[in-house]
């Protein structure tokens, strides 16, 4: 069994790991503090802005973790065998992404002790109820998809074989669950017609959220693969990633056609060119996250360059993050009933504890990815089989 364990990190690498560990520790500390003293004392959330930084990151990270279902679909459903080397890393990204989401959600809940409530108490009209169930089930699927890497490492070939025998049904279940909850994250805002700005409230929002989670999944796969390979000083498979980049062009073109067509059809074009804060944010997310990736990934030279792939996939990622944050914050009118004098000045910017918890969880996830890749057969050169 070969692992990357023997590849000791460089001095720079050690510094990066130490910083990540410090940020993660601070996150654990502030996270526990938040659980002990409550949301009011530690966050800038209020009845005017009940959701903030954490929900924005949760909904963005669910799309980022779409790397898992997107690559599973490419490899096992579309049978594009050449991408099989990327399978394990994308499952790891998916699993850790969803784990981060679950941890942050737990800290964000008013009653973290009752996080299991949706399992017992059902309201199938609620988008958040469906999302909760899908995330629970899909995280289980990801854990099962991840299990072979653990059992292969610990030489349990029978268990690996058993899990591999159900790969196709498992992948179909995973992609179906993802299709449901990635789109339902959009439906979530459809239930707020009088609060959500017209640039984001549209009947096609569930479709837009779904399509952008696929684009984000491809971008996240490219981004994480380059970062992970750099961490271990291995050569990046540029041709393979270039193929994903080329595929993602069509995803973003489809997204742009639906987004633009919807705005034209529903007559919201005036709002697009209003150049108020909503319209400016709309333009930023669309240019960085959609238009630039289409234009830049269309150039073969960029798809053939590691730096180009890295920067442009990062743009798509940032764009989708902005889209989810805009839907959660920019697009939402103040939710609280209050006198106009107060609601006009109501605002939200995250507290340092909100940032600390958020970046702590992200740092912990990055560390977990690094050590998993170091100790387990994640990269193709360390995998026993082609899976």
């Amino acid at each position, binding site marked *: 069994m070969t692992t990357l364990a023997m590849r000791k990190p460089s001095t720079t690498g050690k510094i990066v790991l130490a910083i990540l560990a410090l940020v993660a520790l601070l996150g654990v500390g502030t996270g526990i503090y938040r*659980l*002990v*003293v*409550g*949301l*009011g*004392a530690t966050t800038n*959330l209020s*009845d005017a802005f*009940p*959701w903030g930084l954490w929900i924005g990151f949760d909904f963005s990270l669910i799309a980022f973790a779409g790397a898992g279902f997107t690559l599973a*679909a490419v490899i*096992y*459903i*579309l*049978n*594009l*065998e050449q991408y099989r080397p990327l399978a394990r890393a994308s499952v790891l990204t998916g699993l850790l992404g969803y784990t981060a989401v679950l941890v942050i959600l737990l800290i964000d*809940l*008013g*009653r973290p*002790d*009752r996080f299991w*409530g*949706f399992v017992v*108490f*059902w*309201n*199938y*009209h*609620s*988008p*958040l*109820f*469906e999302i*909760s169930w899908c995330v629970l089930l899909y995280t289980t699927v990801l854990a099962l998809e991840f299990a072979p890497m653990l059992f292969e490492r610990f030489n349990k070939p029978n268990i690996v074989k058993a899990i591999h025998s159900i790969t196709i049904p498992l992948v*179909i279940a995973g*992609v*179906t669950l993802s*299709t*449901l909850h990635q*789109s*339902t994250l959009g439906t*979530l805002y*459809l*239930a*707020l*017609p*009088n*609060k959500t700005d017209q640039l984001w409230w549209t*009947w096609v929002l569930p479709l837009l959220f779904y399509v952008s989670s696929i684009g984000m999944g491809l971008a996240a796969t490219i981004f994480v693969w380059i970062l992970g390979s750099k961490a271990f000083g291995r050569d990046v498979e540029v041709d393979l990633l270039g193929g994903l980049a080329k595929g993602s062009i069509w995803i973003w073109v489809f997204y742009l056609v639906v987004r633009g067509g919807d705005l034209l059809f529903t007559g919201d074009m005036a709002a697009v060119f209003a150049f108020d804060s909503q319209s400016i944010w709309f333009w930023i997310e669309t240019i960085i996250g959609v238009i630039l990736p289409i234009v830049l990934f269309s150039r073969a030279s960029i798809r053939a360059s590691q730096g180009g792939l890295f920067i442009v996939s990062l743009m798509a990622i940032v764009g989708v993050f902005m889209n989810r944050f805009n839907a959660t914050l920019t697009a*939402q009118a103040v*939710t*609280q*009933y*209050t*006198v*106009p*004098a*107060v609601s006009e000045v109501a605002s939200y910017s995250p507290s340092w504890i909100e940032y600390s918890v958020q970046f702590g969880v992200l740092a912990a996830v990055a560390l977990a990815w690094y050590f998993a890749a170091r100790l387990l057969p994640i990269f193709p050169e360390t995998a026993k089989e082609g899976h």
Partner: protein
Amino acid sequence: MSRAVLVDLTRCIGCRSCQVACKSWNDNPAEQTKCLGAYDNPPSFSADTWTVVQFNEVEQADRLQWVFAKRQCMHCEHPGCVAVCTVGALTKTPEGPVVYEASRCIGCRYCQYGCPFGVPSFEWDKPLGLIRKCTFCVDRAEEGYETACVKACPTDALTMGTRHEMISEAHRRINARPHKYHGHIYGEKEAGGTSWLYISPVPFEELGFPMLDGEPMDYASSVIMNATPVTLAAAVGVLSGLYWLTKKKSQAAEEEG
């Protein structure tokens, strides 16, 4: 029979007896407030303040006039909060009240977004926070009493009865004195109808009431949520089909190669 309250804003004198009665009946503590350049006090709902009298200064026909409006949970016929609640902690009862079952709540705060009137408030100060809002005095109703606020109102600005009776009463008052009222009955149609109904001397836009059409808040989301089984079946079908097709194609390619 669904019960309702008719709020006649032409009768309200802004005495805030309803606010005091609400606090007193529900054992909700007073709040430390500060001057905000308005008479409204406190300025908004909170976990401990479930009803607030709004002090509106409205200019009409070159005349400045006060229009006071008691605000609280509207107890919608098709409540947005009930539709979105992850765990079904909120329910609309046939008797009228939208009731909240605290023991189910996980504190996700989606109801605060789902409500178009900005009603549900969260206990931000507690380590384990829950949602709180007007209960329509369900505990008093069980004993056959009117709500604490209706009981306390000295000018009969609040009238309680069945929803049907209150709509007829609103029409009767408007028709009897058309010059006194702006003709609209707020809550008859808004967001699919509410159990609290308002008639006013001025248009409701002037009072900052949300302008809503007759569709329930969850109209669009329900259409899509109800299609979930279809989406699920379609996804499984399309994925299985694609798998079968591409597998056949790659096997054929292998045989040729």
